[in-house]
């Protein structure tokens, strides 16, 4: 582990009801970087180099998934910092929170099948030019866990066109249904998207659960965590 890597600090936010913060922090540490715990009620991002909004059921997913957390004190700080270029990654509930907070367009709604779905899901990495995906080769296909009840990405037609046109669809569900393919009715099979500059990104599946074949289906998720470290080291 180089000391430069050891110097990278990535914040992981915990809201009441956040579940996968331990996993996100573990994935960050796996790269040799430091995981910094951030608390929903604080407005201090502690000078971190990037922020992960992890998965779970913050505030029980009550009202709409992510709706209540989007109003948390820490999110105001995240929104400000993101405007200045701080890389932000939302995973699952984090995706829902980022759309509710207006950091990414569209919304994530109840699965078309209405049920919670947990399975290992094949994705294609559609854009490898972002700070969160640069470690993947163009067209890479990865297998990571998917687990949610509200994962259907929905946006207006013009928003969708813009996302597609600008290469902002980051991950797409692939494979043959019913055991693979689009698991939830997401428009355009979208599993993840990013901002125009690629620094704010989010996806429904869980790369942080795929860092070690002992506890996940693969270690395909590690690429995202190494990507962000690469970009931080380049600066």
């Amino acid at each position: 582990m180089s000391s430069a890597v050891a110097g990278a600090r990535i914040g992981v936010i915990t809201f009441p009801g956040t579940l996968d913060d331990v996993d996100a922090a573990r994935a960050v540490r796996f790269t040799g970087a430091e995981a910094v715990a951030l608390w929903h009620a604080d407005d201090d991002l502690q000078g971190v180099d990037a922020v992960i909004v992890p998965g779970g059921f913050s505030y029980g997913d009550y009202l709409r998934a992510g709706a209540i957390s989007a109003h948390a004190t820490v999110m105001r700080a995240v929104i400000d910092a993101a405007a200045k270029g701080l890389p932000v990654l939302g995973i699952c509930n984090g995706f829902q929170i980022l759309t509710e907070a207006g950091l990414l367009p569209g919304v994530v709604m109840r699965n078309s099948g209405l049920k919670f779905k947990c399975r290992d899901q094949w994705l294609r990495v559609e854009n490898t030019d972002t700070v969160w995906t640069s470690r993947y080769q163009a067209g890479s296909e990865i297998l990571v866990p998917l687990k949610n009840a509200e994962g259907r990405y929905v946006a207006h037609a013009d928003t969708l066109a813009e996302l597609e046109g600008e290469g902002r669809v980051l991950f797409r569900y692939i494979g043959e249904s019913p055991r693979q393919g689009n698991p939830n009715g997401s428009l355009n099979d979208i599993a993840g998207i990013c901002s125009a500059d690629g620094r704010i990104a989010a996806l429904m599946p869980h790369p942080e659960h795929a860092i070690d074949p002992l506890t996940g289906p693969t270690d395909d998720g590690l690429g995202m965590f190494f990507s962000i470290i690469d970009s931080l080291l380049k600066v």
Partner: protein
Amino acid sequence: MARVEVVVVIKSEILDPQGKAILGALGRTGHPGFAQVRQGKHFDLEVDDSVTDAELEEIASTLLANPVIEEWQIRRLPDAAPSA
């Protein structure tokens, strides 16, 4: 065709976790004027004129609501525009 609205709410003596969470959020975001929030479901039905009140009552009590923990109210709406 007639329009019918069914409102389903959790019985008042039963915990409504969603309402509780929303009330908490209102407090944290600087809206102290809210004393209680209860969340229920709202159904907008488009029904054939042949559908009777009894049939509406039956589907409300068996399909739309769970009588063990919820209560409901059925209202036939004036034909016109959608509710929102």
